């Protein structure tokens, strides 16, 4: 249990405690780089009062790194050289955990929907989609040329 100011944002409370995996960028829950799980669902910590998380389960990228499934996710993201600057990577990973737990990734359209709240300015998304498709056991390709592995 931590004491927080009424006006403190969850993102600041986490980061002030050294949990800096969640990043600050747009401040308006557009970019997704501050994504954490609140009771299992992805939320933007930049727009959530820490007080509203009282009594609920908050999971950050640091905590999810210890989840067994994370090993596979990280291995596939790494092998496919998905991310570049990596500022968005924690947010994508957190969103992925939620989507996989909820069985939300049944086809490629699901990937577009589930990750619609995560921006990446570096990569062009294609490699992210292919990696998530592999993780979710979806067929590769589907018009995404350049698929090599």
């Amino acid at each position, binding site marked *: 249990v931590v004491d927080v100011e009424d006006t403190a944002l969850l993102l600041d409370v986490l*980061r002030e405690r050294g*949990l*800096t*995996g*969640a*990043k*600050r*960028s*747009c*401040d*308006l829950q*557009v*970019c997704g*780089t501050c994504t954490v799980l609140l009771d299992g669902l992805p939320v933007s910590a930049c727009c959530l009062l820490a007080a509203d998380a009282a009594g609920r389960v908050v999971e*950050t*990228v*640091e905590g999810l*790194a210890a989840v067994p499934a994370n090993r596979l*996710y*990280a291995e596939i*993201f*790494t*092998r*496919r*050289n998905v*991310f*570049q*600057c*990596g*500022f*968005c*990577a*924690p947010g994508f*990973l957190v969103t992925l955990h939620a989507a996989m737990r909820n069985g939300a990734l049944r086809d490629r359209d699901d*990937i*577009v929907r589930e*990750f*619609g709240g*995560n*921006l*990446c*300015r*570096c*990569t*062009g*998304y*294609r*490699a*992210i*989609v292919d990696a998530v498709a592999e993780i979710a056991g979806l067929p590769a390709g589907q*018009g*995404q*040329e*350049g698929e*090599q592995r």
Partner: protein
Amino acid sequence: MTTAATDRRSAVGRPLPRADSEVKLTGAARFLADLDAPGAVHARLLRSTEAHARIVSIDATAARSVPGVVDVVTAADLKDFDATWGHHVRDRPILADGVVRFAGEIVAAVLAETQAQAEAAASLVEVDYERLPAVVDVADAMAPAAVRVHDQEPRPGFACPPGTTLRGGNDFFHHRIGFGDAVVAPDEVVTVDREYRFPALYQFAMEPHAVIADWHRDGSVHVLSSCQHPFLVRAELAAIFDIPTERVRVEVPFVGGGFGSKSYSKLEPVAVALARRAGRPVRLIGRVEDAMVTTRRHGMRCRMRTTARRDGRLVARSAEIWMDTGAYADNGPTVTTVAAMAAVGPYRWHSVDIDAACVYTHLPPAGSYRGFGGAHLQWIGESQVDELAGMLGLDGLRMRRANLLRRGERFLPGMRPVDADLPGDLEALAGALRWGEDRGRWQGVGLSVGLTPAGVSADSRARVELDGLGRVSVHVGSQEIGQGARSVHRQIAADVLQLPVERVTVAATDTAHTPYDRSTGASRSTTVAGLAVMRAAQALRDTVIARVAGLVGVPVDALEYRAGRIVHDDRGWELPDLGPACGEGSAHELAAGATPPALFWEVCMGGAKVTVDPRTGRVDVDRVVTVADVGRAINPDLVERQDEGCVMQAVGNAFFEELKFDENGVLLNDSLLGYRVPALSDLPGAMRCLIVENEDGPGPFGARGCGEGAFGGLLGALVCAVVDAGVPVTALPMTPDRVWRAIAGRS
């Protein structure tokens, strides 16, 4: 291919995983805002709400009374030194001094014990402005009686290239390219002559600018910054504060994207000025709202005229280009120079007459953004080529084939000849695009070709160290901004030393220890810094060989270096037994044959297929192809990621991204709610990156830089495709509204 690619041990040419993937995925990678700064005060910047105004008064009484506030700093507090900066033109006050020249200019800074206190206090600072007339359109700034943004004559900055002509007036810098003399009878030619507009854009590196600065009591400066050019930041800080360069130390952690937005100095001068005054470290973490008025892509107006003979041979091109650089020059002159070059187009002309002006306006300053110049002009030149082809009843591909420069031909007078196989690239592009396929109504196909100067300077050095445990570390000043510089440099060093990449690390930059590197931009990290790494690794290898030769008493050529082992007859020495040792190298050999800013030419090629919905004006991008003519792909995965990322940025530039200012010069879409950047749903239907490896680049293993050329290349292709679908385009972005109006206006 007969090179090291066939060698299984080779580290070069393989899609090896990035060195930094693990730390980035776990959240362990430290970006600037993640760093602790013990004892630091937190800074919040107060920005002007007016584009052009006299500052009548600044009242900080209420702000100072907020608990935790340490200081409120204004220009009046920075009078004991020349508190101005600007690398090309020293035209910019650290804090607005008596006058503001753009809405968003830094007027004051609040220092407080916490970020929340600083922000609360900043909102209480009262500034009284007397509004002055503002020029917010570059055309108005060029009008004969226009208000001058600066009434002083321009003063060259520390990095202004020798011989640069700066002049008073809003168009303070011109780059002109003129050659040839076309004597053709008017009835032998056809001509296209149009005016075009290009929008201002926000780079949106996801990590905003951020600095931690400390001014030590001994007068030395220590800066941690999210920047692309730490050595130029060091030089600029030394110049501003009039201290020796070696008294300034700049360190760079992981950088959350750059794309040019973190080139040269940005928030470092104000952060250091605040630290100097506070006597404590200053933590200045920018927000997106800060970044959006810190730097941007130049908006532009252009009139271009292109002439061709009736047989399809191109004859002449002329263009007048006005680059809106905003209130301060930043990198505007360089952007303007490259824009002029890109306007020419890689064809065999009889005559060319380009005049590109860098023009002050009362808008936020514009600087570098990926593919600058090419992004501005290639779509214009290429759509004119297509228009001429259409007038002559020729195929656009055949028209380009007939006019495209070949290797060794001169692109621009006095500059390096064409150093890539453009015709070969064009055929590969046309094939991958399936040029010539039938397309339905409201479908279009387009391709575009161009060249832009890259490399800028051969001033990159590197050091490769071997420690006593056999570990190798690479020290090079190219920043890891996401492009994979450290991974590429690791692979180069590992390849030269024939070691597994896991044995090699690349250190983060600390100007106190890292060898000098001019800058991380202009696609130079692989080609220029990479060559320095290769030479340093070779020097290290030679050093350890010489050490064994000395031990054994044999000439070095009696020894063989094999997979990190030195062999003589049946004896072998391992690297751990030979350290510590060190090799140094540089890329200075690239200065020969270079014509700065072109150490080499970056190929800008792209192709696209689109479908236009005439009822809504919406354009779907069905297929894109980019050509990464990289000479040699050190890591093919990273080449693809660079081009793919560039594709998405070009899609944003083409179809929706635009910074919009009101008539008073105030940014209207000042957040990511109003300024939309491409999301996953904007992904084209199909995406292909053609990697061309002719081993003809000047860099290591024949490599040539990439990652920027696709911007102009694809933007040109997207415009040409939309035009081919039946929609005239003379302004970007091609929003549904604009496309719909263009269709409705015709029918």
